[in-house]
């Protein structure tokens, strides 16, 4: 059986919130190393990969590998009942029909318990190789969110151009064009506002803004977001979590003639 307890429901809430706008149903694959999730959107141009390592939970117990087929909208509905600071416990049998969720508000001695019906989901797993990206940009997640939202006003797509000087997000649309450039920046007193660019070679790729704004819904998970780019490979957007856990999004670049 599975029993996984999170100190704060916030992590799980935000993760599910971000994923549910990309995919409808997906399997939570639980094994002794943690809870993993991989799913593609309907168009198969974006992929979400989540890994919640066993260390993120206390305690974590998973006797067998279980796939919990969940409709994410339904899960969101249930999670809405959880307070941000409630402790969250996920429980499931070895061959489960339901996922049991318990929210405990320690302050009020309030315990709410929900059973979520599970479903069988046929899902193909993609093997994602470890890639040496040409450019890795670390930046505040709030900043990334702001850029995508701002540029959405101009166009549906954004070109991310990483150079030695910085990273430039630019969009050209019907009403004109706009761009935001971020330079490397490492404030000692505010580590959360660090902008770091690791570059092996300059790279410029165009992506769908709609997808990127969707990814940004994971912003509450982490203060920092990592964008990894290489020519002609999908962009990886990573929200790193404590203890090696992560939520990653992959998005295929727009190739060829634009507009």
């Amino acid at each position, binding site marked *: 059986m599975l029993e996984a307890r999170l100190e704060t429901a916030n992590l799980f809430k935000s993760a599910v919130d971000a994923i*549910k*706008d*990309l*995919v*409808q*149903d997906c399997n939570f694959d639980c094994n002794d190393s943690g809870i993993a999730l991989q799913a*593609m*959107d*309907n*168009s*198969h*141009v*974006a*992929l979400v990969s989540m890994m919640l390592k066993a260390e993120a939970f206390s305690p974590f117990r998973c006797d067998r590998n279980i796939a919990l087929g969940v*409709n*994410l*909208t*339904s899960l*969101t509905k249930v999670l809405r009942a959880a307070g941000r600071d409630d402790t969250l416990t996920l429980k499931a049998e070895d061959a489960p029909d339901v996922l049991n969720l318990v929210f405990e508000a320690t302050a009020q001695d309030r315990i709410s318990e929900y059973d979520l019906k599970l479903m069988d989901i046929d899902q*193909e*797993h*993609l*093997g*994602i*190789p470890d890639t040496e990206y040409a450019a890795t940009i670390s930046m505040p997640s709030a900043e990334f969110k702001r850029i995508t939202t701002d540029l959405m006003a101009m166009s*549906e797509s954004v070109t991310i151009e990483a150079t030695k000087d910085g990273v430039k997000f630019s969009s050209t649309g019907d009403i004109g064009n706009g761009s935001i450039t971020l330079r490397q920046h490492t404030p000692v007193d505010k580590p959360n506002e660090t902008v770091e660019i690791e570059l092996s070679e300059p790279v410029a790729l165009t992506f*769908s803004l*709609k*997808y990127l704004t*969707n990814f940004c*819904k994971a912003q509450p998970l982490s203060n920092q977001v990592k964008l990894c780019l290489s020519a002609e*490979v*999908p962009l990886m957007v990573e929200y790193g979590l404590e203890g090696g856990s992560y939520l990653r999004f*992959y998005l*295929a*670049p*727009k*190739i*060829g*003639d*634009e507009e």
Partner: protein
Amino acid sequence: MARTRSKGGPASTSADKTASTTAKAASTSTYTLPAESTNPPKLFVLPKNTSSSARIITLENPRYGNPTRYLVCPETGSFYEFTKAAPPNKSTPRSWLLSSEKSEKEPSLESQTIQSPDLYLATPYDPLFLLLPALFKSSSNSKSDNQQRQYLSLDDYLDLIPNTDRHFSEILTLPNSRIEKVLEARLASVCDLVEMGDDKMYRPNESKLSTIILSKASKMAENLPPSMEEKFIKKALEAPVMGVVKDQPPPTTSTSSPEETASPSASESQSTFTTSSGTTPSTAVTTPATEEAPEPTFAPAITASPATISLQRLRTSLNFILSSYLPPFLSKTVLSSLPSETFTELEEYLTKLSKLRTEAAASRNIDINGGKRARDEDDDERLEKKRKMEQEEKVKKANTSRGVKQLAKVNTAGMMKLSAFFKKA
């Protein structure tokens, strides 16, 4: 036995006359139609051998107790009842067109049409039936009091016959009337007789009555009208046609002909059925060759033996007589005083038949219902599937987040599928 004559009733003739006079008065113009008669003549078929003293009188109907007209001829002492022959099909309008021949003997009747297509037939009637209510009325409530019934004279019984219009007494008192003699003879046939000097005293006897009724019935059964034969004999005894004849002797045993002829084969009795003449099945018809030929798959499950058929005829006739001529209380008495074994064979056959009919009806119901259900199930399944699909779609829509819906609108042209970059695990 009879010839057609048109004759209005005593009341109608006078009315007819006035009608014709008014008609004459009205016919000033050549083309004016005479007014319709309020009491048009009726058409009767009357017996030939009645004397001029014959009268139509009103007596109480022994069966129904209502006043009914009878034709009585005092000289021959014969009674006739009137039977109305109505046209078979009511929807087709019919009328009589009357035109009389010139003859010296009878006053000729004006040629005319009669709107009503009815024809009244005077048919011989046993006056015994008229006596029956008076005979058995006094002691109708208790059955076993044959001994307690009193011996009464004919006059006493005649007094008991309802005589409201005094028609009956008048007929009795007509000169050279044979009515009383005839009635006495009929009375004697159903009564125990004791002679006390010159007086003959009668006491009704139920078993005698039963015998007489039964003999009447058997006489009637000899020659049933075709319509009754069809409805009450053929239809009543017809067994449901079964798809497969189960009680077939295996073809190998059919070489021994005596065994077969012992029981009438299906086809044989069927032929007696259709001819309805009640001929006994001739064993000569049954040749081994026909027996060996495969029997028709569709044959009645059972067929009535000639004895059964004649019994059914007898019963039908008896029921007819009992229900048309005898007072209701007497019908029961007569039926119960019949020997109990009279209709045993018929009863057995009918029980078997009703069982078969129920089975056939049941199997037919199953057939119909089965077919219907199968079709319904198909429909149901399809509907169910459709409903399920719709519901699933609905649920899917409800369970799809706004984000996913919006992403579906994103132009992904120029974006390669991720499976192009990442291999399947």
